[in-house]
């Protein structure tokens, strides 16, 4: 038995090796072509308004060289955003789980980081950012990173290498999927979540990212989403809602004692999210200039105000502010500022953070009333916070900071409408799409662990491990 498994692993691996050969052979072709000449720029011309201009092809065809400052910036920001998923989100969620499910909850973020990292280089990036098909999705020309120039500039950001842009987008896809795990924590089967993750990334996230940033219809519409309010936060929340409904309530929901097992872990996780979010928002400027600095400042301001406002709301309403509340409020503020980061000033960021803290605090009471069990409050924080942020972008966008785009309060009421359309389309598309995918997954592997396993905890049930010994 043991031998057989070993052999099969060996064969599968040698098989992949052989299969992979043509891939990197292929890969070599376009890369070997003169760097600096990007074959796909034509098909991307329609996205010109969001893409920075491709560097001018100098006379005498001097080889293109990236801006070292911008390249450093985007690579560092990519690392920061990666750290948001693991350890950031892993700790934030893991601390909120009960002890018997702590490791499984942490594992979810970690394995999603692995899984989507691979999905993205194989086909995800191509679907999201590859040559446009009908404003709906990218085609498969960039599959396996074919036609992505290792030594050339990104068609989306001309001062940095194509690979840097690709990996910066990769970490966004990763965290979006990982966020969903919070809603279905403590009862969903690992196999089901992994299958769901691949399908969801492919059929929901990749097209959605294309709609907004890859040359699709939402970008064309002129809706503003600086760093992913719709693409990342609303979409993960809509999927989370679908997941919470389809997977069902945890045994003992609203009855048993389900307090977070390790709140220090959660607060530290929230701090790391805050830290990484600078990469998320300020990195989305795709260049280390004044817009990055502004995005950095408003990100910090909204996070701080969000933390204060949730904590003070608790203080007024319950008598005492909690650590979990302050941490959640900061995350809510970060979520809300995400779509607005490059477009608004710091005083608007205060209002956005204030609103996020209060609204999301009120939203956590929703689940008890409506009866769905969103275990770690993905809908309340990312759904409500993301929606508020997207709307607020339509209110507060200020040409002084955005370099053009304006919201309602700066004389452009039309923007608000575009924001509402983008928000509504995202909620609808993702919620319905997620339900369908979950139904399919349920039929194939079943969504939920057995009742006995739920009771013993998923750490033992899914992994045969205990978090603490």
């Amino acid at each position: 038995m043991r031998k057989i498994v070993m052999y099969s692993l060996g064969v599968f691996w040698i098989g992949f090796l052989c299969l992979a050969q043509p891939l990197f052979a292929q890969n070599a072709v376009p890369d070997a072509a003169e760097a600096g000449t990007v074959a796909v720029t034509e098909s991307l011309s329609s996205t010109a308004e969001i893409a920075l201009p491709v560097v001018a092809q100098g006379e005498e065809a001097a080889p293109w060289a990236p801006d070292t400052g911008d390249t450093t910036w985007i690579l560092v920001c990519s690392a920061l955003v990666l750290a948001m998923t693991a350890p950031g989100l892993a700790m934030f969620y893991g601390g909120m789980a009960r002890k018997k499910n702590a490791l499984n909850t942490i594992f979810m973020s970690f394995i999603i980081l692995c899984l989507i990292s691979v999905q993205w280089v194989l086909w995800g990036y191509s679907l999201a950012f590859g040559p446009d098909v009908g404003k709906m999705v990218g085609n498969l020309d960039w599959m396996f990173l074919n036609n992505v120039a290792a030594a050339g500039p990104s068609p989306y950001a001309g001062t940095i290498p194509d690979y840097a842009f690709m990996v910066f987008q990769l970490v966004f896809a990763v965290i979006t999927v990982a966020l969903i795990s919070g809603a279905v924590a403590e009862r969903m089967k690992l196999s089901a979540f992994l299958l769901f993750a691949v399908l969801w990334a492919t059929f929901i996230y990749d097209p959605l990212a294309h709609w907004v940033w890859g040359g699709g219809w939402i970008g064309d519409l002129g809706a503003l989403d600086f760093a992913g309010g719709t693409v990342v936060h609303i979409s993960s929340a809509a999927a989370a809602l679908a997941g919470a409904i389809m997977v069902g309530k945890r045994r003992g929901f609203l009855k048993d004692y389900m307090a977070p097992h390790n709140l220090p872990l959660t607060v530290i996780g929230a701090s790391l999210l805050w830290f990484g979010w600078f990469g998320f928002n300020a990195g989305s400027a795709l260049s280390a200039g004044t817009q990055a600095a502004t995005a950095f400042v408003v990100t910090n301001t909204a996070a701080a105000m969000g933390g204060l406002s949730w904590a003070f709301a608790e203080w007024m309403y319950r008598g005492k502010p909690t650590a979990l509340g302050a941490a959640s409020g900061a995350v809510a503020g970060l979520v809300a500022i995400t779509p607005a980061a490059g477009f608004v000033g710091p005083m608007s960021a205060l209002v956005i953070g204030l609103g996020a803290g209060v609204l999301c605090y009120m939203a956590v009471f929703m689940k008890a009333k409506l009866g769905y069990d969103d275990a770690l409050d993905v809908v309340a924080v990312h759904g409500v916070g993301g929606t508020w942020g997207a709307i607020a972008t339509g209110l507060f966008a200020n040409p002084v900071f955005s370099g053009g785009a304006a919201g309602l309060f700066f004389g452009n009421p039309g923007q608000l409408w575009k924001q509402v359309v983008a928000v509504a389309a995202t909620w609808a598309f993702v919620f319905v799409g997620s339900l369908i995918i979950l139904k399919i997954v349920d039929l194939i592997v079943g969504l939920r662990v057995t009742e006995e396993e739920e009771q013993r905890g998923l750490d033992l049930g899914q992994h045969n491990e205990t978090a603490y010994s």
Partner: protein
Amino acid sequence: MKLIQAVIKPFKLDEVKEALVDMGIYGMTVSEVKGFGRQKGHKETYRGTEYTIEFVPKTRLDVAVPDDKVQAVVDAIVRAAKTGTIGDGKVFVMDLQETVRVRTGETGSNAL
């Protein structure tokens, strides 16, 4: 011999221990337990859901003593553990039929 089992407030452990040492009792065993009684626990609220913690942390002290010391030890524990407020705890006395010191194999009161 008797086994005296006292459930007390955790922060009183040091005082009780010292009272016993003062009377010449040098052996005891302590464990952390949770008590349920007249003293009520507290409430915790997480993100809008409120939980009542019914169990209060307590400390249990087991002391085996020869028969002639039982009353004095019980009195000493009660005196040291008392704060006069609800939740001060209980002392239980049970009959002990045999005691063995593992190291030497001594039995009876000599083993205490």
